[in-house]
């Protein structure tokens, strides 16, 4: 999931903070991955696959992101670089503003991170079961996407883009913001739920197929 907020809507402090956080972590990431040339090719491959996946219309206001799959295949640091590049390319042609790239990278990286750790834990827990990959990837994707929905709603709440909050910014806690957020959350959750189910199924299918046909793509840390 990512936010499609255009430029000029978010408050300055929020998008600057988003960029600042991402720059700090990107700096750490490029130091961590130094010398891993082959995984760099994989990171670019995953970024391109994410862009292709986002081009496929599903008939609902949702598109597949494959961020959890990116986290599982690449691991946390390469996933950050890959999601940042994807969000940057998307922003250059108006698929979300350029000011939102930092926040969107945080959201999509959050999905990759959560998905990676849940997948790692679950597939170890189900080590002897034949269905461990399908189950672990499905559950990790679904959980990561639903948690990122909460993160998205929190960012929207923090941004104060609700006009009631913008106009009456002196009246804190007057209940109007709370009401709008409830409506926003009520609209977002069902769409996110459908999207998470679809994406969990697709991620499971891909990982099970990869394990059968080209297991070398799945990194050693799951062994």
């Amino acid at each position, binding site marked *: 999931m990512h936010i499609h907020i*255009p430029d000029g809507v978010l408050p300055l402090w929020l998008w600057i903070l988003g960029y600042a956080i991402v720059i700090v972590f990107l*700096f750490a990431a490029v130091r961590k991955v130094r010398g891993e040339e082959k995984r760099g090719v994989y990171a670019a*491959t995953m970024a391109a696959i994410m862009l*292709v996946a986002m081009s496929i219309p599903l008939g609902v206001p949702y598109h597949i992101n494959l961020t959890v799959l990116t986290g599982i295949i690449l691991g946390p640091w390469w996933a950050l670089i890959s999601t940042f590049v994807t969000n940057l*390319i998307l922003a250059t042609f*108006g698929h*979300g503003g350029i000011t939102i790239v930092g926040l969107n990278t945080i959201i999509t990286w959050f999905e990759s991170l959560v998905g990676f750790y849940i997948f790692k834990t679950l597939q170890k827990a189900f080590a002897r079961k034949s269905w461990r990959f399908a189950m672990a990837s499905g559950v990790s994707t679904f959980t990561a996407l639903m948690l990122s929905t909460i993160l998205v709603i929190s960012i929207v709440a923090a941004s104060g883009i609700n006009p009631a909050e913008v106009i009456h910014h002196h009246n804190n806690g007057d209940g109007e913001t709370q009401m709008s957020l409830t409506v926003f959350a009520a609209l977002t959750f069902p769409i996110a739920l459908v999207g998470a189910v679809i994406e969990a199924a697709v991620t499971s*299918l891909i990982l099970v197929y990869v394990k059968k*046909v080209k297991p070398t793509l799945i990194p050693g840390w799951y062994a």
Partner: protein
Amino acid sequence: MVRISTTIYLIDHYANNLNSPMHKASTLSRLMSAIVVLGITIFTNSALALVAEFLIILTFIAAAKLPISRLLSWALYPAFFASLFALSQIPYSLVLPIITIFKAINAALVMLFLISTTPYPELFSILSIPSKTLGNIAFLTYRFFFLFIDQTGERFTVMKARGGLAGSWKTKITNLAHFIGMLFITSFETSESMYAAMKTRGYSGSISHHKKLRQKFGKQDLMPVAFVLCILAIMVVSTFFKAWRVFM
């Protein structure tokens, strides 16, 4: 849903094959002009100034020989999301929604103007200044994307032609699952072999700074400079107009 693949294809075509004064300008001047105009757009809160800025951006898009209608149609995508905010602003103000929508359209148009006149590798070579890894990944992503989108289209047509989407829902879903899995693995194999081919042709694992990035500021940069000056002129006039109204 925006057809991302078609959009990137066309943008790539405009950036590489058109020949206008903006295309001839140095990468740095184009990038700096886009950053300045984007900054002005974000911080402007005058509806009139934003409308005037919109008209100037369109004029420069036309001067760069770019199709106004197509770029406008792409800029409408962020405008749609901005309109969701704008709608909720109507009860409080009628000017605020106009500001919100024009900020979104103008910012999107500025970005589209930049990438339709600057090939992606030129832009990505800027990323390689702080980190070669970032520049490299962005450049490879761009190369792989075109490859994968072609592969996806071709293989999907083949699957459909061979009856892969015929039969019961169970058959359809099974075939589609195999198709997605196969496509995923093929993408990795393609990127690995393409990377190996690039290395044999001298690719060192990092993109060098594009020659246009090293280009010195000169006559060729008149158009980006004129673009910034026109936008700045609007903001100055708008500020004076506001001050004049206060005094009157």
